[in-house]
Structures are given as structure tokens and as C-alpha cells.
């Protein structure tokens, strides 16, 4: 699972008002090279919750991202490279996602998060 997906996911349990960001529990992560596309990054940037991305990247040991970011930084190639790496190339392989409100654990196996809810959570 990429951090892009993590940044979009929120907890879906009934009654949870603030299910974002899901906390990452990292057991194993991998880096896979992905084609670089500056347009995609510029397009997706306004939708990214920056703080969540920075925290998630740090929990995988990638601390290159600046604490704050705004759209003017998108002109810098250096920034785009880091953004690209954090967003698309870091994959959570084994671990879990944890709901910030209820503490519910969604396990991640082979890079696939299991977001199925129990019947009483729907």
C-alpha cells in the first residue's frame, strides 16, 4: 500500500467522526520505483493532507519532507522528487492501520489492507 492510498483512506466504522489519519504500524516496508510524473503530483497536491503524509513517511524512516508545504514549492524539482518518493514509492508491506478514534486495527498483509468491517461496525 502506498502512502497515497493511506492519505486518502479514513476509518469507515459507523459513528466515527474523525477517522483520519489512520495510524501506521510498520512491520515491513519496501521501496518500488515508479515513473515520475510532475503533472500528477501537481494535480494531487491540493488533495493531500500534508501533515499526515509527513508523519506516515517518517514512520517509514523517510524524513526528507519539510514540515510545511504550499503550492509554490511545486516548482522545485527537488521538492517534487521527495514528494514523489514519499507518495508513490514507499509501500507498506506488512503491518497495520489503526483508527485514531476507536483504536480498531486493520491488518495489512502483502501490501493489501484488510478494511472489512465486522457486522456491528457497519
Amino acid at each position, binding site marked *: *500500500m502506498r502512502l497515497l*492510498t493511506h492519505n486518502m483512506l479514513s476509518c*469507515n466504522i459507523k459513528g466515527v467522526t474523525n477517522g483520519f489519519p489512520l495510524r501506521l504500524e510498520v512491520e515491513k516496508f519496501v521501496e518500488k520505483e515508479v515513473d515520475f*510524473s510532475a503533472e*500528477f503530483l501537481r*494535480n494531487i497536491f491540493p*488533495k493531500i493532507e500534508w501533515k499526515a503524509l509527513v508523519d506516515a513517511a517518517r514512520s517509514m524512516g523517510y524524513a526528507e519532507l519539510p514540515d510545511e508545504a504550499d503550492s509554490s514549492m511545486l516548482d522545485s524539482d527537488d521538492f517534487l522528487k521527495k514528494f514523489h518518493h514519499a507518495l508513490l514509492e514507499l509501500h507498506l508491506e506488512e503491518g497495520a492501520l489503526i483508527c485514531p478514534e476507536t483504536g480498531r486495527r486493520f491488518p495489512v498483509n502483502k501490501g493489501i489492507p484488510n478494511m472489512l468491517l465486522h457486522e456491528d461496525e*457497519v
Partner: protein
Amino acid sequence: MSSRPELQAPPEIFYDDAEARKYTSSSRIIEIQSKLSERALELLALPDDGVPRLLLDIGCGSGLSGETLSENGHRWIGLDISQSMLNIALEREVEGDLMLSDMGQGLGFRPGVIDGAISISAVQWLCNADKSSHNPRLRLKAFFGSLYRCLARGARAVLQVYPENLAQRELILGFAMRAGFAGGVVVDYPHSSKSRKEYLVLTCGPPSLSTALPSGKGEDGETCSDDDSGDEDNQTVCISDRHRPRKKLKTTKKVKGREWVIKKKEQMRRKGNMVPPDTKYTARKRKARF
């Protein structure tokens, strides 16, 4: 036995390891799936500026439809309820991100982040109640409600469906409209029983010019050019199997009436057999409680 997969088992059970493997190793299914997803992507009508978008593939299965999205340069997140299908997708090293998730429980995405959604042959599964806790109406409502929330304003969702009958189509479309979507059904090749395909084209946000429904292919009798020569059965994902065979009308056995009974009794009497006398009860049906 019915051969619509929806009627056989819940999706996470129907698409087990064997079925998932079969599904993805059939070149026929691969071809149809990629055709369907190409058409879905066309109907999605993303702005033609070459910018890769973030799309959702609902019911991505083994990632056949996602491959089309990747080929067109888009990033995608796929979700499916069948672990076996997702395992095959992993094996095939698809480019999108995968997620094990039940669309009937709602999609857990932040509001307004997705640029478009496609779904190939998946949404009709929502009309089934596979567990006692399932209510198709609530599940459809949760699905369309959450889909509407996670799509960006003006984004589209194209859902290719195989509704079982008219009522099911109405049900699905009704819930989509209630969630706030504008749009309707586009039918490709409406005159062909085999190549007929239905797409729900839904637009998020207030109705505008861009929400005008595109027209289906082959509506004016134009046939699907390259497909006609081939074997008709090869056109679709088991469309012939997806129609439930008509229930046979109960053949009412000819009930033999009172006259016939009296005639027979008379014959027996003439033969000298012991026969009960004819009364008003002769040849009457027994009461149900008997």
C-alpha cells in the same frame, strides 16, 4: 441450477482460488474485461490534458480493468472483497494499490479526493443479501452515499452492471439518484442480446451541460463491427450464463373430474366389485388440513 454467479454464492466465496485463477487465465474474459474497461474509461470523459488522475476501481478483482487504467497513464486504487482475486492481482504485479474491502459497507475515503471511479460487473452483487445482516437497500445506500462523498465535484463514476431484471436496474439507479448523482444508464448495442452492455454513468455535483448522458454504441442498429464474424458465445463474460433460466410454468396435470370418477365406479360395479355409493362427496378434493 442457475448460472448467474450472483445467485450461486457470495462474492468472497464464489471467487475462490480456483475461480480466480480460471477467471484470469481465460483469454476470452481478459479480452472482454479490457474492452469493457476501455469503454468505461471513455465514458468517464476525463479531461484530455494528459494529466494522470487518481481513479478508483470498485470490484477490481485480479486487476484486469486496472491494467487498462495503467495503460492510459492513470494511478488507481482497486478494491475487492475476494482475497483470492487480490492474490492473483498481486501475482500479476498490477500497478495500482489494492485493498480488501466490501463496497456495501461504504468506501472509507476522505471526501472529494478521487477524480473518477469505474466498476466492471460488480455493483449487481449488492442486490443480493448473502448474510442475515445484509440488507440490499442499506448496502446500496451506503455504497452510493460514500461514493458520492469521496468523488471530487464534477467527477464521474462509470459502473458497468449486469442487472438481473428491470426491477434490479431501477433499484440500483434509484439509489444512485438518491445519493445525489446525476446521470443515467447508457446501453451499448441495445438490440443485441449478447453484446448488450449497460453502464451507469453518474456525475457528482449539480446537473450541468457536462452531465448530459453520452449515447450508447450501436443504438441505431449499427452492429459491433469486428465482433460479428466471431462465435457469438465469445462476445461476453458468460452473458448467456448470466440470465436465469425462465422458471418453467407448472404444468397443471389434467385433473380428472367427477364425471370420470362416476363413470369408472359404474364400470367397477358392472364387474361386480365392491364400490362405495355415489354421494355428494364423490370426487371432492380433500381439505388442505386433512
